[in-house]
């Protein structure tokens, strides 16, 4: 009975195994990125970047038609351009990162819409570019897996400056010059993870699997390492439970995964050990003087 509900879908169908593998790879890459985005108060950056990717995809479409590789490459380039330009402007002028990013992504979106309309078709490019987690072919799966690998490796390299800059940027500036390069590398990682997330989940949901686990982790841990571990774990659990939910109830898989994450998030807001509502209302005895 339990075996039928929870394990049989994966042993019986290859597409479910592939979807699970993709969800796990996405969790490994995306959730740590989400934690840093949250700590740097950039949680909405993911959404903005999603729009910034459109013109790149549009140019790819113009050059080689409905070719996934060309459109993905174009999206990556556009995303990098916006992320790096916004990062450079924020670091060299007084404009804050969110404002410069908002500017660049709006320009990028306008360009994208214009380019698409020059071609004169109304095919929903985002629909073509962004896939379905149930439709993982070998190529997409490999791309997602190597992306997760690269993300973890790069994060390992820039981990210290990134953490210090997240909590005390002024201190980092006094002791090291690694702040700016590590920030730009981090923005690049955001773009790579988003483009790859789109291939698996679609726009909104790719951002969701990045940000929601970070929100969950915030309620269970005080230190960054703990947060990253909890975020990755909750992303994986959401991926697995969402797929099972989608298999048993006919909810589309992408939304199912995010809904599971949302349920965990609500539970964490209520019962989380770090700043959860119940913990605030009924602090344990040991906290009294």
């Amino acid at each position, binding site marked *: 009975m339990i075996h039928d509900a929870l394990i049989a*879908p994966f042993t*019986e*169908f*290859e*597409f*479910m195994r*592939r*979807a699970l593998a993709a969800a796990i790879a996405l969790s490994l890459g995306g959730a740590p990125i989400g934690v840093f985005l949250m700590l740097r108060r950039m949680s909405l950056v993911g959404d903005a970047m999603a729009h910034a990717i459109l013109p790149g995809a549009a140019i790819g479409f113009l050059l080689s038609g409905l070719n996934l590789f060309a459109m993905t490459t174009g999206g990556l380039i556009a995303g990098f351009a916006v992320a790096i330009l916004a990062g450079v402007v924020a670091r060299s002028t007084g404009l804050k990162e969110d404002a410069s990013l908002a500017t660049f992504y709006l320009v990028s979106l306008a360009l994208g819409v214009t380019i698409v*309309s020059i071609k*004169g*078709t*109304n*095919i*929903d490019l985002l*629909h*073509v570019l962004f*896939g*379905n987690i*149930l*439709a*993982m*072919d070998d190529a*997409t799966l490999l791309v997602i897996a190597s992306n997760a690998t690269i993300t973890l490796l790069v994060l390992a390299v820039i981990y210290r400056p990134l953490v210090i800059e997240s909590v005390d940027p002024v201190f980092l500036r006094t002791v090291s010059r690694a702040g700016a390069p590590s920030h730009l590398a981090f923005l690049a990682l955001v773009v790579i993870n988003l483009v790859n997330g789109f291939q698996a989940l679609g726009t909104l949901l790719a951002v969701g699997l990045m940000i929601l686990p970070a929100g969950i982790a915030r309620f269970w841990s005080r230190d960054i390492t703990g947060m990253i571990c909890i975020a990755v774990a909750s992303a994986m659990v959401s991926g697995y439970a969402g*797929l099972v939910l*989608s*298999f*048993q*109830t*006919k*909810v*589309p*898989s*992408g*939304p*199912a995964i995010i809904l599971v994450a949302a349920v965990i998030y609500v539970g964490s807001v209520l019962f989380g050990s770090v700043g959860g509502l119940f913990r605030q209302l009924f602090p344990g005895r040991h906290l009294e003087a």
Partner: protein
Amino acid sequence: MRRFQLICLALLLTALPARAQDRLNVVASFSILGDFVKNVGGDRVDVTTLVGPNGDVHVYTPAPADAKKIADAKLLVINGLGLEGWLPRLLQASGSKAPIVTATRGIAPLKFGSDADPHAWQSVANAKIYVANIRDALRGADPADAAIFAANTQAYLTKLDALDREVREAIAHIPEQRRKVISTHNAFGYFAAAYGIEFIAPVGVSTESEASARDIAGIISQIKAQKIPAVFLENISDPRLIERISTETGARVGGTLYSDSLTDEKGPVPTYIELVRHNIKALTSALAN
């Protein structure tokens, strides 16, 4: 006074022949309807389509230029049966007074769930009703050219009759137990009802809804259990999903079936007749032993 009457008469005389040479400005909601109008109207009408070649009429977003096209139209031809969900607001915005022809009038709609299935043109018998409706409407809008419209319609209906016979002959060559396919887009309900080929779709009647893991699993089990010989891609929906199903079941991947839109002049299906021919060729080659 006399002079004024003369001027009026002169104006009338110059205006009359000019009016007779004016072509009737007709707007059709999408490319297949546009093709029908062209065939009936011949060189007496100017046809504009709102959703052009390769566009997806289900998820279309009208542009201001479309409101202008409608405002200038003498006649608006739509499919009806809920296909053009975006049309009412566009009509209101354009302030158009043009009469609206519902080309599916008189066709008994198939049901898809609780809604009518709008893809009635997929059966050639229905296409003949479309053409008759369009002829009547054109006659109403431009009685002077009624004879031309009648002759054009007669010629076109003869071609459609020949096409219908061609389809039936082609299907007669397919062994009966092999007359079933999977297609991403459930647009072939009328085709299936008319010609006895069973279409099983992974996604619902509209391209807007996303398939759940359960849907995909159901289809895979079904292909295996019923030994369905072929899986078809479609010119609009995500091809990766179909490829996944195909590799998992060993069913043959057929060519593209065109459902909702024609291609441009250089594409494989610039006209309705070529669309039906293309589809039937793709079906017979995939389903033959």
